[in-house]
């Protein structure tokens, strides 16, 4: 999947996109000890009326890891994303995000806590009465940031998703892919340490889906975010597992290895790439979690999914578009 993605203008702009602002120096309320997972679900149960959708889900997402939730429609992927953001509460079990127990927090505290996470909704969920600029700057205005800095940050975020020309447009004027990109810009504008992507490629054509995954790669590799991504597309998982965004060239490059025979090479390539200590994300493989009937059916690095002999998983892989 080496694909020519237009570089971020110039190395100067890449550096500008990464420079900390006074707000970045604000403590991000991460209450975990080093090595502890940033997102943890412990025996979570969620049911609606006559059906239990999630039955004892437990998993962790380590600091810097990108975990992909795979599953058919209705398996509870979106529910897990909303649980992690505290938008819904579990019937039982605990949900810990950055050391905070979001399953027990009152809404007032959750509102403050959510300022430290980014959430990309399935259909974008842009505010349709506001322009693209107002959508992306929404959180920054709520925090009463200086107008000059807001404008700068908004332009940076939109440049990151290659939508800088759409500042004054409204969501109704944008295509589905463009709305998704603006939604990513809105989620990343404040550089949160944790980003939750709920089916960011749902309903998009393969080319636009690839663009979205590229943006997620850029967010992962340039901003060092910990991410949980829900999708029904297996290609998204492999896209994140087998490629990285190269800062120097501004292109997406393969990590090395492909398919079944490439597992060892893939892991070795990742470790070699991370030897310099700068691309610490790449020590964490992209892990995949497959949901089925409300339970975790499979959990391992993405490459192992290709090697599985399980009939259901093989059928799941074969039915991928």
């Amino acid at each position, binding site marked *: 999947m080496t694909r020519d993605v237009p570089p971020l203008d110039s190395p100067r702009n890449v550096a500008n996109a990464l420079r900390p602002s006074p707000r970045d120096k604000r403590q991000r309320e991460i209450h975990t000890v080093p090595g502890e997972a940033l997102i943890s679900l412990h025996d979570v149960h969620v049911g609606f009326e006559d059906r239990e959708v999630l039955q004892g889900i437990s998993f962790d997402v380590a600091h810097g890891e990108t975990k992909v939730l795979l599953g058919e429609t209705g398996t509870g992927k979106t529910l897990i994303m909303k649980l992690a953001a505290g938008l819904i509460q579990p019937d039982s079990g605990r949900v810990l995000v950055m050391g905070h127990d979001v399953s027990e927090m009152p809404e007032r505290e959750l*509102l*403050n806590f959510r300022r430290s996470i980014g*959430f990309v909704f*399935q259909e974008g969920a842009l*505010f349709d009465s506001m322009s693209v600029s107002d959508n992306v700057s929404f*959180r920054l205005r709520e925090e009463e940031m200086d107008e000059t800095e807001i404008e700068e940050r908004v332009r940076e975020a939109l440049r990151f998703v290659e939508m800088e020309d759409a500042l004054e447009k409204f969501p109704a004027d944008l295509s589905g892919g463009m709305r998704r990109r603006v939604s990513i810009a*809105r989620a990343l504008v404040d550089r949160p340490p944790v980003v939750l992507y709920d089916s960011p490629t749902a309903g998009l054509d393969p080319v636009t889906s690839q663009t979205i995954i590229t943006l997620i790669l850029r967010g992962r590799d340039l901003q060092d975010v910990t991410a949980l991504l829900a999708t029904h597309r297996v290609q998204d998982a492999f896209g994140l597992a087998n490629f990285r965004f190269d800062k120097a060239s501004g292109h997406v490059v393969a990590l090395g290895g492909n398919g079944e025979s490439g597992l060892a090479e893939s892991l070795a390539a990742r470790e070699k790439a991370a030897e310099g200590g700068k691309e610490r994300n790449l020590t964490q493989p992209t892990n995949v979690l497959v949901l089925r009937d409300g339970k975790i059916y499979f959990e391992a690095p993405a490459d192992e999914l290709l090697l599985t002999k399980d009939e259901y998983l093989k059928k799941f892989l074969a039915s991928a578009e």
Partner: protein
Amino acid sequence: MPEASATPSLTAVFADVAKRQVAAVQDYALLSVQALQCMFSPPYYWLDTLEQMDIVGVGSLPIIILAGLSIGGVLVLQTAAQFQRFGETALTGDAVSLALVRELGPAVTALLVSGRNASGMASELGSMVVTEQVDAMRALGTDPIRKLMMPRVIATVLMVPLLTVVFDFVGLCGGFLVAYTTLRLGAVQFWTRAINALDIGDVVQGLTKPVVFGLIIATVGCYCGLRVRGGTQGVGRATTTAVVISSVCALVVDFFLSRLLLYLFQ
């Protein structure tokens, strides 16, 4: 062969419906209290409030003026014959003034604002709910009750009394026009009697009721919108429900409020 599930009895059905209605009233009361609590702590969304005041107040002016003119004129038309029978056409100004200021002004304004604005609030907020914009707002760390509901409640509570005053004045103008053309009632006689007929109790009634009606209209409209279920069909249902419930509640509360205010001022 599996057994057929038992059909619930009529009592069970009624009990279920009653429980849901009680739960809805409780939910509405909690939401309204939350919205009112937001008025006493920051952040305040003054720009949003001003925008809503423009939508509710300025936007409703045309229908308020038209309705006021018509109703004032109709009042005189309907009462003129009776007053002529007793030779007391001079009382026309009194009757129109008292009817408009005490009752018709607040009630009709509430019904018009409910139809125009409660439906608008329910449909706008309902659309936001079904397209996950409200969830997005929560995910961005903003309280949707504070950002969406509070400005609408404040705007409606402030604007409905002002609209009522406009309705009353325009209604009196409409009444005078008809009285002048049909009864040949002079301007001085009409307006002097219209103003002198009112006492402080009437004015307090006429301004207290719109405040309460405004609160009902905004809270019901926002509640119906924020609790939408069932996609676009649900939004349509919520819009209708908001108008019906806010109108009926305003009229029922009007009865009790009138009783209370009459007791206090007479």
